[in-house]
């Protein structure tokens, strides 16, 4: 595809135009304010001393030797700052009796996962801090660790002994109880006698968000306000939580998210590192910077997914679905994160997908383990749900010997049925599954590939072909504040925007969302340009600083455009309303007689008019305002959505499976997404492509693995196999458009769509290729070894645990590592020695 930047001089609206992103030059060249680029006068550097043990009591911490090391200013332990360090909080206790272990930024008595911070070394240079961190001598008493979510549910070993159980919360949604559908058990019982019941267990492996920019924090405590620059998705939430947990006055805290290099939910967190850096900086009274290494990022930034899913699907004999029952165990890791247990809860409204179930039940148990904490990761709860329903719909099709698209069509909501009240209690705003599917089939050459599949089967080709389907929906636009309130969430879901009309004709759009690579500056400019009739280039979008954008709830959950973009629309409309009064006075006309279009107010039926930027200048001088009129046409707006919006799409994937090696190769991938009105098709393509790769990566490549001691084996990108462009193919993407009814522009979210939809499409394709061999599942990631093992056992095994540890590619012993006895590298080496 060639990308052309359509100039703003071209006629027509900005919205819908494939604008190149105005922020890209600085982001891509790196000549910008990444947190780690920030250098302050007198700034010191921090290094973290982290626990190598998954679970241990801290007997003592010896800091003297480190404190004598060159350049070291101080070593801060949790005990040193126990009254001021604050806490890493959760915003969403999903039940009133949820067990939430205290999460101290710097652990004091006990560590509950490897990588937890036990001390902070502050030195003149980052190298000196790192050197001295190795001189801090921590005496640990190792405790038994529990790592697996399902085992944790049995409480044989406790992640936090004082809690008495590993279960954090039990949460349930039942359609009969909530009056949104029938009784699940009755429907399943009925299907057991005269219908079809399909029962499956799926595993959502643990993933690591792997944002490009490692997390970094700079704290300057020397001003009247303490300023915190940090690579976060949530500067506003961080400011609030620093105040709430450290006792600092909120008005004394300024948080800035400068340019942030990706997050994918991984920076939807207030982190131990942020609080530890803050505590250290306040203690030494000087600016302190901390930037994590990639290895630290992988072990201590929160992980994603990690669920055991048990599903029971009931259907009548003709394949009409009747009931779905979901039993989930979600591993939260050692602590309940910001969204924490709420992440799997977000799946509660999505397991039913686009299908018309009569009865539905969702049972969730969240458990604590001695592993890295788990929280939101692109899609947060919805990819897990979509995977389960889209996998099991294929199983239903296989049971009936029907085409998976036919089975879906038999059960999905038709386009005439919108708005549709789902069995889980959500109202889907709009959609057209038929249209998206028809377009996807056409782009994919569905019938042609099915023919090829048959031919390969007939000639027993060692390379088999499979076709995978995913007809997904998701809910985005977190979130109606009222709904969040009813779910016990600790904050609202509104979003804010302000527009400042500068006297020189330029415009500042201030948004409470906090972009970290999505392109808000471009999209918001397009929206404001249309609403105000000013050139795209004349608009500056400001964000991510609690002093500049004081009101906001930040960026996650595909909310920025549908909630934050709508706030921009409303603020712009208010500006026009205010400007109209000034214009009316200047034009000596009645406001009712003015039209506004293309940035000009004109008096109906005359050629008299004035531009909105001239009005801005006039209100600046205020030389000639109407009697009693307040100067100023700037405006603010806060938008709180009434409901979610529901993007959807049909994704089709063809995979070749080499039955001799178990290796897989993607042949074709088609994604037709309906995300309502598109503001910038180029940005949408970027979001879809990136999302697809992340979802495909879950299906094929990525998994966070711990060894028996709880050491992260996939602790670097050598072993955590993140794909690159070389591993992907050119995707065929297109859109159908069912405008959302929940906001003025008719937009739906797109940030997570690709990631939500693609995982089941890929796994369905692999299973489809192998189905004639009696195989009905391959565990993710579908590594060649797992695929091959499944083939060998002809379906008896779906490819279980991976064997062994990481293979070392670097030989030397680890002179500076006081790891647990057989560390990750050694475990791998042993494997190699056998």
């Amino acid at each position, binding site marked *: 595809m060639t990308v052309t930047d359509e100039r703003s001089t071209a006629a027509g609206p900005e919205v819908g135009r494939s604008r190149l992103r105005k922020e890209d030059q600085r982001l891509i060249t790196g000549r910008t304010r990444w947190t780690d680029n920030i250098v302050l006068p007198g700034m010191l550097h921090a290094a973290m001393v982290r626990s190598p043990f998954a679970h241990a009591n801290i007997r003592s911490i010896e800091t003297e030797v480190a404190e004598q090391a060159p350049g070291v200013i101080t070593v801060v332990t949790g005990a040193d700052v126990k009254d001021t360090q604050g806490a890493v909080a959760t915003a969403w206790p999903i039940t009133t009796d949820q067990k939430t272990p205290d999460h101290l930024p710097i652990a004091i008595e006990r560590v509950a996962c490897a990588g937890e911070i036990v001390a902070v070394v502050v030195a003149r240079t*980052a*190298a000196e801090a*790192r*050197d001295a961190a*190795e001189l801090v001598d921590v005496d640990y008493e190792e405790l038994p660790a529990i790592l697996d979510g399902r085992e944790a549910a049995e409480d044989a070993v406790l992640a936090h002994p004082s809690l008495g159980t590993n279960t954090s919360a039990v949460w349930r949604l039942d359609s009969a109880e909530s009056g949104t559908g029938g009784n699940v058990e009755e429907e399943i019982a009925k299907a057991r006698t005269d219908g079809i019941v399909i029962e499956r267990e799926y595993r959502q492996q643990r993933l690591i968000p792997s944002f490009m920019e490692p997390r970094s924090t700079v704290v300057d405590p020397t001003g009247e306000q303490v300023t915190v620059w940090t690579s976060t998705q949530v500067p506003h939430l961080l400011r609030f939580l620093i105040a709430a947990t450290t006792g600092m006055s909120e008005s004394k805290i300024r948080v800035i998210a400068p340019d942030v290099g990706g997050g994918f939910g991984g920076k939807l967190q207030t982190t131990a590192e942020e609080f530890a850096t803050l505590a250290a900086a306040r203690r030494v009274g000087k600016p302190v910077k901390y930037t994590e*290494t*990639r*290895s630290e990022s992988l072990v201590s930034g929160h992980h994603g997914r990690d669920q055991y899913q048990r599903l029971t699907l009931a259907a009548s004999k003709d394949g009409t679905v009747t009931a779905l029952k979901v039993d989930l165990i979600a591993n939260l890791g050692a602590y309940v994160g910001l969204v924490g247990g709420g992440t799997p809860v977000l799946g509660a409204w999505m397991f039913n997908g686009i299908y018309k179930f009569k009865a539905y039940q969702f049972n969730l148990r969240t458990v604590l383990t001695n592993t890295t904490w788990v929280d939101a990761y692109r899609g947060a709860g919805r990819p897990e749900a979509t995977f389960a329903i889209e996998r099991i719909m294929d199983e239903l099709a296989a049971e009936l010997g029907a085409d998976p698209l036919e089975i879906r069509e038999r059960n999905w909501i038709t386009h005439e049925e919108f708005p549709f009240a789902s069995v889980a209690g959500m109202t889907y705003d709009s959609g057209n599954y038929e249209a998206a599917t028809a377009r996807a089939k056409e782009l994919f050459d569905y019938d042609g590939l099915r023919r090829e599949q048959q031919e390969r089967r007939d000639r027993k080709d060692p390379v088999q072909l499979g076709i995978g389907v995913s007809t997904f929906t998701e809910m985005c636009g977190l979130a109606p504040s009222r709904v969040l309130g009813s779910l016990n969430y600790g904050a609202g879901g509104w979003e804010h925007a302000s527009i400042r009309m500068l006297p020189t004709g330029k415009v500042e759009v201030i948004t409470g969302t906090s972009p970290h690579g999505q392109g808000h500056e471009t999209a918001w400019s397009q929206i404001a340009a249309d609403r105000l009739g000013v050139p795209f280039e004349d608009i500056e979008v400001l964000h991510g600083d609690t002093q500049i954008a004081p009101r906001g709830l930040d960026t996650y959950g595909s909310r920025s455009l549908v909630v934050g973009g709508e706030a921009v629309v409303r603020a712009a409309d208010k500006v026009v309303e205010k400007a109209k009064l000034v214009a009316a006075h200047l034009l000596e006309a009645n406001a009712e007689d003015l039209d506004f279009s293309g940035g000009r107010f004109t008096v109906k039926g005359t050629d008299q008019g004035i531009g909105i930027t001239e009005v801005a200048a006039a209100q600046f001088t205020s030389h000639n305002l109407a009697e009693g009129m307040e100067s100023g046409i700037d405006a603010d707006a806060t938008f709180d959505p009434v409901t979610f919006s529901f993007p959807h799409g049909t994704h089709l994937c063809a995979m070749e499976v080499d039955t*001799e*090696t*178990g*290796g897989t190769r993607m042949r074709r991938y088609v994604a037709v997404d309906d995300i309502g009105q598109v503001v910038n098709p180029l940005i949408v393509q970027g979001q879809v492509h990136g999302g697809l790769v992340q979802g495909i990566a879950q299906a*094929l*490549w990525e998994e966070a*693995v711990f060894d028996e001691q709880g050491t992260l*084996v*996939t602790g*670097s990108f*050598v*072993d955590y*196999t*993140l*794909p*690159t462009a*070389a*591993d992907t193919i050119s995707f065929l993407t297109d859109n159908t458009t069912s405008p959302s009814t929940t906001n003025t522009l008719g937009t739906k979210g797109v940030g997570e769509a690709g990631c939500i939809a693609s995982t089941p499409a890929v796994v369905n394709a692999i299973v489809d290729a192998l189905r004639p061999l009696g195989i009905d599942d391959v565990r993710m990631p579908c*590594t*060649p*070894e797992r695929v*091959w*093992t499944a083939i060998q056992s002809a379906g008896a095994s779906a490819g279980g645990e*991976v*064997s*062994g*540890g*990481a*293979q070392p*590619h*670097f*030989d*030397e*012993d*680890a*002179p*500076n*590592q006081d790891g647990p006895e057989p560390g990750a*590298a050694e475990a*791998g*080496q042993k*494997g*190699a*020695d*056998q």
Partner: protein
Amino acid sequence: MIPVQFDYAAPTTLQEALGVLAEAGEDAKVIAGGQSLLPILRMRLNAPEKVVDLGRIEELRGITDEGSHLVIGAMTTYADVLASSAVRDHAALLVEAVKTVADPQIRHRGTVGGALVHADPAGDVGAPALALGAEFVITGPGGERTVPADEFFRDLFETAVGEGELLTRIRVPKHTGWGAHYEKFVRVAHQWSIVAVGATVRVDGGSIAEARVGLTNMGSTPLRATAVEQALVGRPATEEAVREACAAAAEGTDPPSDLNGSADYRRHLATVLTRRAVLAAAGA
């Protein structure tokens, strides 16, 4: 990812380098392309007091034709190998293997010598060097010695190069006119080989006259599948005949078990990949 502080020396001649090494003793570490050493230093898996850079020693870099052999200087980069028509014509297997190493950035810095001395069993140049019967010229304070390929690789990350010594060049017997293929099996493109097989064969009148097969990551050192090599001689280059000969590819191997595959799976892969490599090398 900050290494422990070290001193740095960049000698310009081999003699000078050997002198610096002799003086620094076991506290010194040689750096070639740095593609393995730098990660080791940055992860603080090693903390040498002195790093001796071979990058300015001209005599260690380059490829020369010595009649029956090609001589490849230790500091010759992967990119140099790929650009060399001599290597392509006379040791095609090396080119095929080097093509698969990592990515272009790494291929422009990483060196043949560094890779061989690093001796990662998952590295891609060891098995081809072994299969081609390369000789390794090692230079130390006492002068030069030449070690045959089957004595060079000692164990995991261990070679015949001793403390204070340098690998200076390898001598590769010419395999002019031999077909070659390196079949590398990975999950993502930039990965080290899970298993790889390098095969180079001389086809004469439709049947295989001579064959050399090297296995990557099937033990603690690169291995040669001599049983397969012998079984291939005289066979037609057909799928069936080659399949039979390659069935024993994993015999005598001792592959690792790790995240990417169990030992059994690797043994299975070795037989499949050997067949594919041989067939491709034979142009079948």
